[in-house]
């Protein structure tokens, strides 16, 4: 699975995700990627793209949960994303997210996640495993 989330200087947000699914899946299987709110979501607060085991991400409505936790519980992007990822079984999910104010977070509960980010203030990160 691959994905990208971005926010511009005016706070406009967008999210995109694409995948081949997983090896040896049944024909006709649909994963989280095209299910809006599961593996992909964006509103005026944040943009999220998830990766991992689609069935777990769908059941956890992971991407939408990040936005909902920010909207209804007032959590920061980082806390909301961490909560959403911790809410699904270990080893099944990771996500990238940005907020309208330019925050970035990339939590995962798998062994690793290929990931990268950059912000206007010069921060840049490329990683695979936990720090």
């Amino acid at each position: 699975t691959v994905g990208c989330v971005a926010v511009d200087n005016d706070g406009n947000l967008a999210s995109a995700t694409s995948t081949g699914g997983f090896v040896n899946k049944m024909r006709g299987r649909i994963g989280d990627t095209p299910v809006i709110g599961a593996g992909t979501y964006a509103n005026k607060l944040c943009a999220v793209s998830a990766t991992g085991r689609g069935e777990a991400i769908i059941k956890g409505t992971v991407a939408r949960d990040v936005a909902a936790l920010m909207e209804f519980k007032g959590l920061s992007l980082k806390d909301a994303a961490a909560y959403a990822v911790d809410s699904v079984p270990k080893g099944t999910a990771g996500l990238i997210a940005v907020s309208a104010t330019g925050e970035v977070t990339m939590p995962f509960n798998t062994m690793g996640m290929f990931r990268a980010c950059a912000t206007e203030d010069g921060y840049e990160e490329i990683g695979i495993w936990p720090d």
Partner: protein
Amino acid sequence: MGWAIALHGGAGDIPVSLPAERRQPREDALHYCLQIGVEALKAGNPVLDVVELVVRELENNPHFNAGRGSVLTCNGEVEMEASIMDGNTKNCGAVSGLKTVVNAISLARLVMEKTPHIYLAFDGAEAFAREQGVETVDSSYFVTPENIERLKQAKEANRTQLDYTEPTSKAVNNKNLTSNGDSQG
């Protein structure tokens, strides 16, 4: 407030011992795609264009499980899916079951912008791709030797695999299976 961008190339049981020849091309691609996205943001491109642009690049890279490099179904075929969403409007588009579309993410955007729907799948999505004139190819374009081998191993173990599960012998695969049927690599 300022611009920011993040991208991923999949999560899973990526061993710390991942050989450099498998790690480095992916790290290089992440770096390349990040720079493309950063430059697009700095140039003032619409944010929806930026995420589509970056995902297209990732789809075109055979080292990632999307587009070229997509993993295989139990029948040895690709069935690709993608979605895109605009935060301001909550407009969105999604596609599933694609076998010939080079960039699924761009077709998802066309679903968002050119139809009254948000999700097209399988034959309908393929037909829509042809109506819109997006680039299509023979499905063999998407199949890599590595993914043929991964399917063979998954079939031998009678299991599905998440992204980046390390190729292992049948015996080791069986030893590492979890209760939900995922090989942990």
